């Protein structure tokens, strides 16, 4: 079972192939279909009486899909158990939403912060991004990166002490 996420929607999905046929299960619903690869690398999918041709490539936990005029970047978590699949992101932990450069740290580890206070400032593609405290609390962790260092998307930026 894979958890596939796009924007705020997630889908518990599983696909079984057998020759040119496949069975897809999405959030408990099951679909049957067929597919074929085209000479130019496209894949044709036939499901629910509809044939569509698109492109699809995966890389790490990302899958890039073009289908019916829309480009998608899907996140995939493989082997997810259904029960904890839709767990909410913690309000205590703030990750970098971008890959970029650390421009400034406004507070120090251990400081008390109020909801909305700017904690760190990042820069990517000529724009500043201010990461703010999601609630009042005490800063239990703060990135060890120095000003000017490169930051990766998903890297822990700071954490608030548990309430």
């Amino acid at each position, binding site marked *: 079972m*894979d958890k*596939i996420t*796009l*924007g*705020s*929607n997630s*889908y518990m*999905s*599983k*696909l079984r*192939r057998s020759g040119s046929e*496949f069975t*897809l299960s*999405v959030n408990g*619903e099951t*679909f049957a*279909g067929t*597919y074929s690869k085209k000479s130019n690398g496209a*894949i044709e*999918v036939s*499901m*629910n009486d*509809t044939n*569509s041709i*698109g*492109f*699809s*490539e*995966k*890389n790490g936990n990302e*899958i*890039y*899909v*073009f*289908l*019916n*005029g*829309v*480009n*998608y*970047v*899907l996140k*995939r978590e493989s082997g997810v158990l259904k029960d904890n699949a839709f767990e909410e992101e913690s309000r205590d932990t703030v990750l970098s*939403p*971008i*890959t*970029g*450069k650390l421009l400034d740290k406004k507070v120090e580890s251990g400081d008390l912060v109020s909801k909305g206070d700017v904690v760190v400032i990042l820069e*990517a*593609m*000529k*724009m500043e*991004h201010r990461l703010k405290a999601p609630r009042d609390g005490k800063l239990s962790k703060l990135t060890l990166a120095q000003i000017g260092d490169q930051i990766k998307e998903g890297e822990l930026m700071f954490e608030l002490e548990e309430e």
Partner: protein
Amino acid sequence: MIKKILIANRGEIACRIIRACNEMSIKAVAVYSDVDVDSPHVLMADQAVNIGSANPSESYLNFDKIINAAKETGADAIHPGYGFLSENGAFAQYVKESDLIFIGPEADTIKSMGDKAESKQMMFEAGVPTIPGSDGELVGNIDSIARDIGYPLMVKAAAGGGGKGMRVVRNEGELDSSIEAAKNEARNSFGNDTLILEKFLDNPRHIEVQILGDKNGNIVHLYERECSIQRRHQKIIEESPSPAITNKFRKKMGEAAVKAAKAANYSNAGTVEFLYQEGEFYFLEMNTRLQVEHGVTEMVCGIDIVKWQIRVAQGESLTFSQKDIKQRGHSIECRIYAEDPSRGFLPTPGFIRKMILPEGPGVRNDVGVSEAQEITSSYDPLLAKLVVWDSDRGSAIQRMDLALSNFVILGLITNQPFLRDIMKNESFQKASFSTNFIDENFKDWDFPALDPQVLALALLSSKASQAQISSSAESYSPWSNNRGWRQGV
């Protein structure tokens, strides 16, 4: 006559300018930072010079490195594109002092137009409509000044910027408390509590007029562009003509823009930006450079603005006058950005694994990236400009939607799905919008719920071939030694 131009820029605009050079039999020199070694603008140019690290101040913003590259390669002119050094008066002056031609207006013009207060004052004196306000420091009977301007109005820190020390005042009752609050904020933010009052436009359109002037005093306008579709105060969709104004009004705006350009002693291409609301327009600022969205004007007027920039820079006179310039049909541009419209338009670097551009009648691609290219976080996330033309606005919207739907780009998040939703939006189609359009209509935009077919295709995907993933950084590069580069004849 200019024989060789150094393009002090990167991305799609550098490619656009190189094409113009090629077509005019002028040699083009590209400059590039370390991370741009395999970028399209480098591969397209006749020569390319490495000017330093990814950090713009050490490459694309570095006066000396750029002038040296021009000298080394024997270029006789520099085209700054947009962004970077394009509106830097000191750079324009430095280029001239280095005995090179700066493809743009005079340094003095760039400087005066770059100072918002000075340019507003200059336009006011020239009789170009400006936003009514307190004309400098707020002194005397504030209530009466406010009544003269009319509500709603805006109290602003004179030294301000970035929204600090700024308050919208809806009516007389709010005036005193707003002034008090703005003053405190201004003092805290800028150490200076001088305020000004200005009329507040709550629902304006952004309409701008393209200007073209030669060095012999001829100035014409190429009509207007409607640029109200913005996110974070940055345009994402532009069109020409504006669907908001009548032909009579269009003429009036054009004449005001020419008046503004004459007041600024303008030559070369430039843009006069106006805010428009309820039948009135007000000077906003003048951009003393080529605009990102110049393409829609080219499509509608049939005039190549970049080629004319080069011609007037080498002293040629315009070969047409105002009455020869006609708008025909309708053109729309969509900016394809590496950004996530579901997360506040955050930039989304990545690697372009596959790109297929839309083709066909009335479709123009101004592209600055290519397949197998890394999009780093070092620069602006603009990937490409998709421009369409058709005989009328409705047809142009349909053509744009089809073109967007044929734009394949795999490997990073782009605003392509968002742009398609805008094309389908009723207010957009009815041309009923202001600069608040995105906030009003797409505040909580999210990617669409997935059709099971998309999930099937996703799970049927295979890994990209090794060739596509391999990074270009490790490959042998002849440019790493800061050598010039020449494409064979």
